[in-house]
């Protein structure tokens, strides 16, 4: 056969799944992993960036604020005084809101009072990428980051309807006058009419070499929230069994947001 069957399915998988006929393909690949149809764009590289949120380590409001501010400042995220125009990349909410499908009955007081970070999960199988008609939202298959091209986005907001985590914001109006404090010249500002969200600081990570197996990302290339978290957020390569993040995941019980949807989030929580 000319074309490798797996490659063929990779290309077709997203399309067919979108048409609701995944079952047929599943029959075809039953000898292989169902993953080929599960992922619109399988992560082919040796890296899949992921994050672990050590929930209990976030005690004071200040712990959250530091991370949020580091992110929002670096990325020139505007601050509006109205809920309607709001733009946010990382924020915190209550347990039942961040984990609506987890158990809510008789949860411990600690869990009830605790707040939980919410951000883009950089899902391995992201619905936002599947629906975007222009590929303005796309998967960087070399590192698992769900990226956004603001110059390509047409502002249809299909991705906002599709993201099960409410991770995306839209520039309902010109954001520039609302960027608090000084502009960060290293990062572009956005215009009205496009969607935006957390990028796992792809551009910061790319400031130096990618770490090899067994190596960690150097501090200065860590995402801004991770840097500001003082160890409360662990960031690393999910594909490297030796990485700190994998060791953390192995040693502790963690949960993901809405795992039943099959999006395969790259953000995990120690609760």
């Amino acid at each position, binding site marked *: 056969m000319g074309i490798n069957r797996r490659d063929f399915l990779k290309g077709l998988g997203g399309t067919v799944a979108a048409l609701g006929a995944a079952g047929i393909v599943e029959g075809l690949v039953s000898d292989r992993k169902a993953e080929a149809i599960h992922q619109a764009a399988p992560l082919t590289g040796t890296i899949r960036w992921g994050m672990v949120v050590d929930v209990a380590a976030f005690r004071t409001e200040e712990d959250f604020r530091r991370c949020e501010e580091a992110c929002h400042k670096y990325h020139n995220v505007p601050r509006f005084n109205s809920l309607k125009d709001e733009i946010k990349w990382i924020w915190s909410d209550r347990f039942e809101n961040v984990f609506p499908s987890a158990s809510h009955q008789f949860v411990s007081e600690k869990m009830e009072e605790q707040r939980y970070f919410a951000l883009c999960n950089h899902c391995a199988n992201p619905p936002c990428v599947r629906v975007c008609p222009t590929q303005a939202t796309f998967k960087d298959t070399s590192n698992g980051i769900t990226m956004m091209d603001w110059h390509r*986005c047409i*502002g249809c907001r299909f991705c906002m309807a*599709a993201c*099960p985590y409410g991770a995306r914001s839209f520039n*309902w109006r010109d954001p520039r006058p609302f960027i608090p404090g000084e502009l960060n010249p290293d990062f572009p500002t956005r215009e*009205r009419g496009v969607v935006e969200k957390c990028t796992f600081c792809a551009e910061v990570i790319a400031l130096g070499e990618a770490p090899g197996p067994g190596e960690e990302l150097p501090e200065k290339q860590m995402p801004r929230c991770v840097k500001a978290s003082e160890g409360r957020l662990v960031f690393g390569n999910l594909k490297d069994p030796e990485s700190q993040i994998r060791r953390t995941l192995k040693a502790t019980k963690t949960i993901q947001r809405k795992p039943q949807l099959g*999006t395969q989030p790259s953000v995990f929580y120690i609760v």
Partner: protein
Amino acid sequence: MLEKALYGSKKYWALVLFLIGLTLVGTVAYIKQYMYGLGATGMSRDISWGVYIAQFTFLVGVAASAVMVVLPYYLHNYKEFGKIVILGEFLAISAVTMCILFIMVDMGKPARVLNILKYPTLHSVMFWDMVVLSGYLGLNLLCGWVVLQAEKKDVPPPKWIKPFIYVSIPWAVSIHTVTAFLYAGLPARHFWLTAIMAPRFLASAFSAGPALLILLALLVRRYTEFDAGKKAISKLATIVLYAGLVNFFFLLMEVFTAFYSSVPSHKETFVYLYMGLEGMGNLVYVMWTSLAVGFIAILMLLFPKNRENYGRLAVACALLFVSLFIDKGVGLVIGGFVPNPLEHVLNYHPTAIEIMVTIGVWGAGFLVLTVLYKVAISIRALTSPGTH
């Protein structure tokens, strides 16, 4: 043939000017929105599609419903629909025009919309929606025009048009199916994540569209020489009735699944729409109105006598149209966003600008419709004088 639209009675011109006026109001409002951004609307981070996309969704149904006259006429040779078929096709053209306009006014970056063509994305339903919609517009323009032209010359339509007409039948079904897939394929939204979304869409479309077509045919009959024929209208009324019944049956099925299973995420939107949730629920009265007038309309249509009497038929069709307009053009789309993915409950209030733009688009759509109907009716008057 378009020149036929340039000669008309005072009443015709009054209508045209009125519709131009509405379009202008919408244009001014749109310019305001364009300058400020979509923030001029009531949409938010949580309810990110509003009136525009809801209207778009509803009107795709109206466009698709042309198949309810095209199919019996061309496939089953149901001669009674001979006259109304052109009204159906031209209604489809104006409905698709409105769909395109609603998409355009909803774009954050309208100037970039051709990116959809530049980066064709086969796994995006929106890409396919664009393909089927523009294809449908092309098919209807072609078929409507060629058939009408043949009629003007008093000859049978050319043979080569037949395949296009046949293709337009499944195509009509496809536009509304694909539009339903915009919603039904999203893991995030429980209210939309239902396999009967497409059937529901079709049922409501095949009721609301023909209901509008009946109203238009009755209006045309009243103000012009053109009469679609009693038989055609009463047949259409039957279609409206049955599709309407199926639509409400589907709604009941959704309600049963949600409430008998008692799964919160399946119930919540229904509760929000019909009872209010966490103190929010600005659509409750609207949704009950939809149910009530829909029920009355169906009840009226159930009696054959009411289907024969034009006055009562018009009332029933208007009621059913309003009911389905609310159900799909308001509740279904906006309701899907509440509660949001983080289980927060928020209301959406369209702004004045948003409503004005919406009226403007309807104005533009009816302007297209008026002009097309004028052409069709003038040509009919030429070829078959005195058919009344």
